[in-house]
């Protein structure tokens, strides 16, 4: 029995793992001891079952679609609208300037084409005669009175 206790740690050894003298001594003991021989047989029978079980478990999962799934996400992220969001989110200041620039340009055009504000405009009653026929303009605070010229003998004219 004390021999069994001595050789028990060696029962799980792999070939070549023990020194030759110990291996030969263990073999001699196994020839003589039925219990230790049975114990070693059990060990040899279960050896590798754990690794095989883990491999089998790992093999249950199919990693084939993994690459496709990753590539699909990458493609979505860099799709057309995604690129815009990426660019805007990484260049917020530039994006804001780019968006505001047309607004400022439009405002500048409006100011340019509208001309001076009414406060800077010429005074009311500005009268412009662009052809013959008008000779007299009376200015009142209610507005101008425009009279036609008397260039023929139709009758009298005036104030």
């Amino acid at each position, binding site marked *: 029995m004390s021999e069994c206790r001595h050789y028990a740690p060696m029962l799980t050894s792999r070939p070549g793992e023990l020194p030759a003298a110990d291996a030969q001594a263990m073999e001699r003991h196994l020839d003589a001891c039925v219990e230790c021989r049975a114990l070693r047989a059990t060990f040899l029978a279960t050896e590798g079952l754990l690794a095989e079980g883990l491999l089998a478990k790992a093999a249950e999962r199919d990693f084939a679609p993994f690459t496709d799934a990753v590539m699909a996400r990458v493609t979505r992220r860099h799709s057309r609208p995604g690129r815009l969001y990426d660019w805007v989110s990484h260049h917020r200041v530039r994006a804001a300037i780019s968006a505001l620039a047309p607004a400022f340009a*439009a405002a500048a055009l409006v100011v340019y084409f509208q001309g001076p504000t009414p406060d800077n405009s010429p005074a009311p009653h500005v*009268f412009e005669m662009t*052809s013959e*026929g008008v000779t007299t303009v009376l200015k009142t605070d209610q507005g101008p009175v425009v009279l036609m010229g008397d260039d023929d003998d139709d009758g009298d004219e005036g104030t």
Partner: protein
Amino acid sequence: MMELQQRRVLPTLILSMALAAAALLPSAARAEAVPTRVRVLKATRGTPGKLDPRLEDVKKQVSALAWQQWTLVSDQTPTLQQGTSTFIDLPDGGQAALSIVETRGNLVTIEVAMAQKNTQSHVTIEKGQRIVHQVAKEKDGVALFIVVTPWP
């Protein structure tokens, strides 16, 4: 993380586009059209002086002229357009063409033209004023005028 960034960026984009639209819309939607009251007046020499009660508001402008009797012939409220003439019929068979030349705030420049009489004038007035414009020369003591009141 990506969604969070989008939530921050989208309001900025929308606000910027709204600002751009706000800057563009006034110029695009600015309509050079002015509602106007146009009255045709017949002015006659003679005594006693007589002013149509409906012309009381133009009394100050016409009282200094050589005609003493003023009668309202027609009263209409067209909307004058820039670049488009609005024709006003006159009792003598002629027409006066009115159009907007320019509007700037409370100022408006109106063109009054009588093709038959080779007369065309541009008059700028401000809101609250009116133009009294002779449209037919005096004949047998009678002359024709129009009173143009923008934004009546």
